[in-house]
């Protein structure tokens, strides 16, 4: 064909070029990102300039970079999408580190952009320089330093792929300021495939068939489910519910997996592990077939390894091959997506016309119901002082029928929330499980609220934890986010106090916070609503008032019993069948010397 007025090739190329900062914004848009959490600084000013010039992506200004990462985690966990963070170099990046480590341990997909000093200054101890890729290497799934604007689009699309595929996790992209300002070629997501990182998601059919045979033959089975089901997506939860119905087997879950199976279902035996239910832990201990679906045999769950479910054959489905045989050696390992695996199991079960061993199962349920009858979550009621468990029971009952997203801080209140709140759906529960990060709950609630406007979002908090990221109140006020902060205020670092009481002879070293702020005034100072409940009588009214606030954050200071301990509890280094049910049992004699070194 005759080309009458050919544009010089170079000219055409040049037209396509936009600067690094614009490439970043365009790439985010093409990745379907609508919200990013960040904090500006010198090394990211060109990116902030690019953000200023567009309206597709909403930037949420947090008050500390750590808050940005937790907010992105809350956003990611409540939506199943990748959370996105933007921070400056040096202190911006180092402040983000806790959140990155948190996202890594809980397998949360996050992409975090960090500014960096210009390429020619890297290594010179320039102002606000730090070795971001060096610092974040062990606390990210992967990280990149991009030194060429032409590579930026590819790296960003790759980073989203890495963050969300296989076992999800945080990815850092460090971008020197000169790269943000240099022109480069843009590539769309469709033009970028990762050449080598393609994690295996399809389970091996052979292993699935062997697993189903074992499941069908079980006499004392248990489904031990974990965060993998949530990460796999809502289809995995549906498949789990269906498979549980088909088999009639009991279901327990880790802290991370709550909501995958409805807590209101009769087959639900409660959370397992250190503060799990008596019935869940004894069912685990006594089972003959354990079906681990997307959990990782964490030390909070297994207790003493040598006595962990000693008479069981174990099936383990995990998308991460390194989780298999890491701490517990299993009989049938299955590497792949857990949702797909359960769906395949259902097909095989139906094709082979399997049915559960009715007599054995009836006996097993009779035993489980005996354990249930111990009512391990019972506590001594009081009409004078608010018991923390009572506060959560009231919160549970008064929010019934309202779609609710729960986040938590870390400590006793977190365990009580896991025990008492009714999780019936996936992606409605966000807690820092792996890293146990105090200060997680408020920013995570902000992220969840932004993703679900108009929905009820509650951070169940401790008075010590909430102070770790209290500055994010200001963020919540700015964006008119009606997050609720329900503080179980026992005036102590309750979980620390509990261990000191039980294991360290009641020497309460530094676990009391003198000079706590007045949380009502604090809420008001930020521009939020502050409420307080001092007695059980006041509680219902205060919760209703809290639920009515719809245009700003609300802190509820619930003054609870200072001395309440969280039970049941497996002392460190003990087996599942050595649970302590209440303070009437002496725990110090139950903690073996090996247990003292454990956290």
């Amino acid at each position, binding site marked *: 064909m005759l080309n009458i007025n050919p544009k010089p090739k170079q000219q055409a190329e040049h037209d396509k070029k936009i600067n690094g900062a614009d490439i970043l914004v365009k790439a985010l848009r093409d990745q379907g990102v609508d919200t990013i959490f960040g904090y500006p600084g010198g090394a990211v000013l060109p990116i902030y300039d690019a953000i200023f010039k567009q309206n597709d992506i909403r930037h949420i200004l947090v008050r500390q970079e750590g808050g940005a990462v937790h907010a992105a985690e809350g956003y990611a966990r409540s939506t199943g999408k990748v959370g996105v963070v933007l921070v400056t170099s040096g202190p911006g990046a180092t402040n983000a580190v806790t959140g990155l480590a948190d996202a890594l341990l809980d397998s949360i997909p996050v992409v975090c952009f960090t500014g960096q000093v210009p390429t020619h200054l890297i290594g010179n101890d320039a102002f606000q320089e730090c070795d971001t890729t060096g610092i974040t290497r062990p606390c990210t799934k992967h990280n990149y330093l991009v030194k060429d604007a032409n590579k930026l689009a590819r790296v960003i699309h790759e980073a989203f792929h890495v963050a969300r595929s296989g076992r999800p996790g945080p990815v850092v992209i460090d971008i020197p300021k000169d790269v943000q300002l240099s022109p480069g070629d843009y590539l769309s997501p469709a033009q970028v495939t990762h050449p*080598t990182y393609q994690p295996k998601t399809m389970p091996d059919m052979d292993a699935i068939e062997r697993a189903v045979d074992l499941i069908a033959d079980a006499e004392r089975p248990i489904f031990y489910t974990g965060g993998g089901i949530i990460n796999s997506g809502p289809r995995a939860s549906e498949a789990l519910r269906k498979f549980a119905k088909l088999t009639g087997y009991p279901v327990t879950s880790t802290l991370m997996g709550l909501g995958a199976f409805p807590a209101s279902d009769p087959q639900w035996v409660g959370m397992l592990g250190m503060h799990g239910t008596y019935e869940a832990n004894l069912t685990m201990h006594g089972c003959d077939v354990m079906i681990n679906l997307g959990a990782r045999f964490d030390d909070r769950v297994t207790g003493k390894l040598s006595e962990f479910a000693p008479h069981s054959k174990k099936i383990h489905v995990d998308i*991460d091959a*390194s989780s298999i045989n890491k701490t517990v050696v299993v009989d049938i390992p299955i590497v792949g997506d857990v949702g797909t695996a359960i769906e395949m199991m259902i097909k095989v079960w139906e094709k082979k016309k399997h049915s559960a061993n009715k007599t054995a199962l009836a006996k097993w349920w009779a035993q489980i119901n005996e354990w249930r009858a111990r009512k391990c979550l019972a506590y001594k009621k009081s009409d004078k002082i608010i018991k923390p468990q009572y506060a959560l029971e009231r919160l549970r009952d008064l929010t019934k029928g309202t779609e609710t997203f729960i986040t938590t801080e870390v400590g006793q209140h977190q365990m009580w929330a896991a025990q008492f709140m009714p999780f019936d759906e996936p992606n409605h529960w966000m807690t820092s499980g792996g890293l146990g990060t105090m200060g997680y709950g408020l920013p995570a609630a902000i992220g969840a609220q932004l993703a679900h406007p108009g929905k009820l979002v509650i951070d169940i908090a401790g008075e010590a934890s909430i102070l770790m990221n209290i500055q994010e109140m200001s963020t919540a006020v700015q964006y008119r986010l009606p997050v609720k902060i329900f503080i179980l205020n026992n005036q102590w670092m309750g979980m620390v106090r509990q261990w000191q009481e039980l294991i360290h002879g009641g020497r309460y070293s530094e676990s009391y916070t003198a000079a706590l702020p007045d949380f009502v005034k604090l809420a008001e100072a930020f521009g939020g609503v502050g409420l307080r409940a001092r007695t059980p009588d006041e509680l219902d009214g205060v919760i209703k008032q809290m639920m009515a606030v719809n245009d700003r954050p609300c802190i509820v200071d619930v003054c609870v019993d200072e001395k309440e301990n969280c039970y049941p509890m497996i002392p460190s280094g003990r087996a599942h069948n050595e649970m302590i049910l209440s303070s009437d049992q002496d725990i110090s004699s139950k903690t073996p010397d090996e247990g003292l070194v454990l956290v």
Partner: protein
Amino acid sequence: MTDPTIINQQRHVFSVIVDDEPGVLARVVGLFSGRGYNIDSLTVASVDKVKAISRITIVSCATPQILEQIEAQLNRLVPVRKVVDLTSAGPMLERETALLKVNSMGEKRIEALRIADVFHAKTIDATLESFIFEFSGTNEEINNFVELITPLGLIEVVRSGVLGIARGSKAIF
């Protein structure tokens, strides 16, 4: 009482094919130090400029469960393309090169030369009072050579670390 995990330890040679990019060695080394695996030997070099890949050979001593973990953990690293536990995969060859500087006079000098000859070591530098020998062999052969030559004036050793390759006609990558 001897620690049963020590008795149970085996020495394995891993070949790791990685993208030839900055920081990849730090990721591998960081993985070993972070998870408390030991490294007996580590070598790395670019092996294909066109495909942009490097090959790392790592020797580690660990229990079978940890060896399985090492392979799985290496596989998690994004720039890792392939991990092969050569020791488990079948018959394999190991080679290491050592350069040894020996300073001696008289009888000892002659004896050093004789031993080098027996081991088929090459003499790659000589002065009136010193030699540098180049010797390739398995890790154990080098240890033996070093042991014999030490009393004969060995003053400096440098070793390449272990290289491993599977025997036979198939390539691992």
